[in-house]
């Protein structure tokens, strides 16, 4: 059995699966159920100064596929709407009852040192394992000068991190917003301010859908809507890229990362870990399936690690990061071709029509009695992968690299590059 224990910013947990700061971690009742289900850690729902915020009614929006599977999720909730003292008291008790699990507390405040330090001092007393600064909430709180209003300005990220760093020895994670032009700027700012780690991504600014009867965005509050935070499977590719960008940037390469965004399976988690995340956080998948979702995540990751011969997470952590490069470093001489397995083919014709209409007219239909035969014309196939993505049968269309015997040559070396001389 693989060892799933993980460690980030000096905080350890029995497995790398944490619940992200959100409704699933809003109170002791939920968090205890999560720990019972097997979650390795939680980041408590973001605390703020009293009086607590008031939420509106009608809070979530969703992007569903044709089968009502949820692809994306959006919300306009604020931070915790319960009194600070009640949260602190519950945090203290839960940490006492579950000493082996990670319990990190998320917090948010105005752009004032006393506000941040005041909160930190009270959280310190709970015995919690660490702090996560919420500089990411892109709705509601930002209109009050908090959340992404701070997270989008690198100087403010650095300042807040510095204030908190100076006031406590607790492990310090800074949670980043993806609603920025370049994720490296706030990541570098957090590092300068003294963060032990960063976590990302918080939600993406969004309108989930438009209600065409009400003519208003969803979720709709008395006929009006507002932009909300987007998360769930649809944001995973955005999060993966931002995690990789931080990991391969030399200034932030040593900054531990807690990966968040669209994680719903062991495979999603393994991908984040392979790009260098030290652990992962989950919100939407738990909100869609309940806490039991961690079971398949734990045994799936463990089984895969056993199959691959990885004894510990460190054995593959960051293993894919070195293969994330700039486009300019890709091998122009590499060539791959689609191969269609006629035995697996069910004659749906999808590969043909997409290649014919939108790609390179490389898939011919040849009649063979009743069933059609789809043949790839190698000279015309550019290896775009489109057909293999639209084929409904797993493994029916595979991409096979050609052994063309040509050496590695990137664009900067390519004689077809008109700027080669200038670049070289």
């Amino acid at each position: 059995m693989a060892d799933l224990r993980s460690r980030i910013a000096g905080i350890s947990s029995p497995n790398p699966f944490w619940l992200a700061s959100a409704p699933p971690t809003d109170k002791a009742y939920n968090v205890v159920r999560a720990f019972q289900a097997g979650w390795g850690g939680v980041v408590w729902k973001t605390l703020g100064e009293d009086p607590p915020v008031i939420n509106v009614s009608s809070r979530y929006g969703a992007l569903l596929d044709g089968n009502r599977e949820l692809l994306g999720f959006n919300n306009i909730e604020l931070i915790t709407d319960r009194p600070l003292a009640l949260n602190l008291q519950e945090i203290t008790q839960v940490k006492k009852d579950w000493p082996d699990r990670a319990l990190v507390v998320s917090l948010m405040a105005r752009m004032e040192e006393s506000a941040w330090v005041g909160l930190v001092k009270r959280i310190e007393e709970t015995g919690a394992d660490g702090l996560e600064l919420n500089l990411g909430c892109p709705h509601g709180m930002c209109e009050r000068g908090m959340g992404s209003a701070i997270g989008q300005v690198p100087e403010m990220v650095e300042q807040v991190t510095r204030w908190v760093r100076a006031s406590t020895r607790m492990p310090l994670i800074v949670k980043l917003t993806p609603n920025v032009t370049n994720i490296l700027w706030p990541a570098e700012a957090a590092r300068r301010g003294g963060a032990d780690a960063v976590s990302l991504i918080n939600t993406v600014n969004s309108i989930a859908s438009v209600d065409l009867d009400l003519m208003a965005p969803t979720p709709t509050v008395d006929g009006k809507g507002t932009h909300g935070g987007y998360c769930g499977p649809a944001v995973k590719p955005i999060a993966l890229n931002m995690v990789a960008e931080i990991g391969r940037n030399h200034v932030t390469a040593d900054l531990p990362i807690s990966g968040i965004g669209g994680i719903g399976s062991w495979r999603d988690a393994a991908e984040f870990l392979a790009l260098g995340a030290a652990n992962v956080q989950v919100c939407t998948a738990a909100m869609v399936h309940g806490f039991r979702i961690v079971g398949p995540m734990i045994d799936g990751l463990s089984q895969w690690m056993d199959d691959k011969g990885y004894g510990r997470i460190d054995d593959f952590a960051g293993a894919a990061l070195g293969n994330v490069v700039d486009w300019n470093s890709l091998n122009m001489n590499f060539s791959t071709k689609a191969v269609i397995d006629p035995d697996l083919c069910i004659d749906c014709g999808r590969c043909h029509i997409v290649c014919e209409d939108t790609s390179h007219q490389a898939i011919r239909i040849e009649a063979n009695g009743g069933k059609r035969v789809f043949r790839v014309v190698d000279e015309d196939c550019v290896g775009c992968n489109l057909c293999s993505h639209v084929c409904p049968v797993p493994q029916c269309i595979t991409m096979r690299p050609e052994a063309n015997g040509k050496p590695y040559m990137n664009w900067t070396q390519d004689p077809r590059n008109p700027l080669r001389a200038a670049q070289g």
Partner: protein
Amino acid sequence: MTAAAHNGPQGLDDDLVPPLNALQAMAESSRCLYCYDPACVNACPTGIDIPGFIHRINDGNVVGAAKTILSANIMGGTCARVCPTEILCEQACVRNAGEQRPVSIGRLQRFATDALMARGGGHPFARAPGSGKRVAVVGAGPSGLACAHRLSMLGHAVNIFEAKAKPGGLNEYGLAAYKMTGDFAQREVAFILGIGGIDIHYGKRLGDDLQLGALSGDYDAVFLAIGLAAGRPLGVEGSDLAGVMEALSFIEALRQGRAPAVAGRVVVIGGGNTAVDAAIQSHCLGAEDVVMAYRRGIAQMGATTWEQQLARISGVAIKPWLAPKRILGSGGKVTGVVFERTRLVDGRLQGTGTDVELSADLVLSAVGQELREGELAGIPVTEGRIGIDADYQTARPGVFAGGDCVKSGLDLTVQAVEDGKRAALAIDRFIRKGVSHGRSA
């Protein structure tokens, strides 16, 4: 539909394959792979854009789905209920590979067409500007109605002459009651006529009340869609006893709410759709024991495997290799049927000389339907059907024919509709050619 989960109809009004609810329709429509130029479309005689309509259901565009269906097949509602999809579209679904379970195309088609009809509102298709041309259609069954609808869409005025008192043909008088619950046949005809430009004259029988020669003279073209109106005679002694009926008359009576009293033993003679339907419906009406006797083997039966299964599930005993020899009676009333056992010898059916006697209180003959040739004023008939060319035109110019009265494909509702549609397009070309010639001259 598979027989696996079916109990057979529990009564004449028991919808054989119940409608999908919205949740089921969404789940089922998401199984469609949106294939390109797929086999299911080619397997549908009317060529409905099946992935196109299913995709629209999944998109929440149920009206667009229904229009996609109806533009190819104006009787998409009936076809969704009665098509033997197991030998048509669903047999060709790529989901059969691997999963052995096709997308339920027929049920999705019903979901869409029912939804459109339930919404009411205007007819979904518009008529082209009036052509000033008039077409006579004989017979208000699926083929005649489909032809009339398309002709009307193309801008022509249509008069339908129908022998019976109601429209719909076998939709109204022949299809099994449990396939057409809720007076669907009449609701659908009303929907089709909603396009306008079509007048139906009831109680007008070609050969009696009107003659082909006169019709040809009065109209720019004539379309014959008279089906196969005569039951083929059993041709055995005792066929005239009380309690011996043509299966189709029996079904017609029950479809019109005049079901004959059924009790005791029923013997149905025949191996096709009609025999299966008569057997199951007599069971629904209270027969204690129903036997379907067929003179050839199970593999030669006209009824599809699913229909045979449905008969068995409903409690019908199917006895192959029995050819009727004589009907027995006493006091003028049927008491039983004597059959001769048969077998295939070198591919030819032969009697074995052994007799089998089945007792019966009601005997239903379902050995096929025939053309009433006398009505056709000498139009040539080949192999029992009206002869037509590739344009559905008979040997007499300007007289077209389609549906069961011609041999175009299988004798199914969907084929009759396709014939009507194609014939309308051919008629349109025929009469417009006349127009343009007239102008250029």
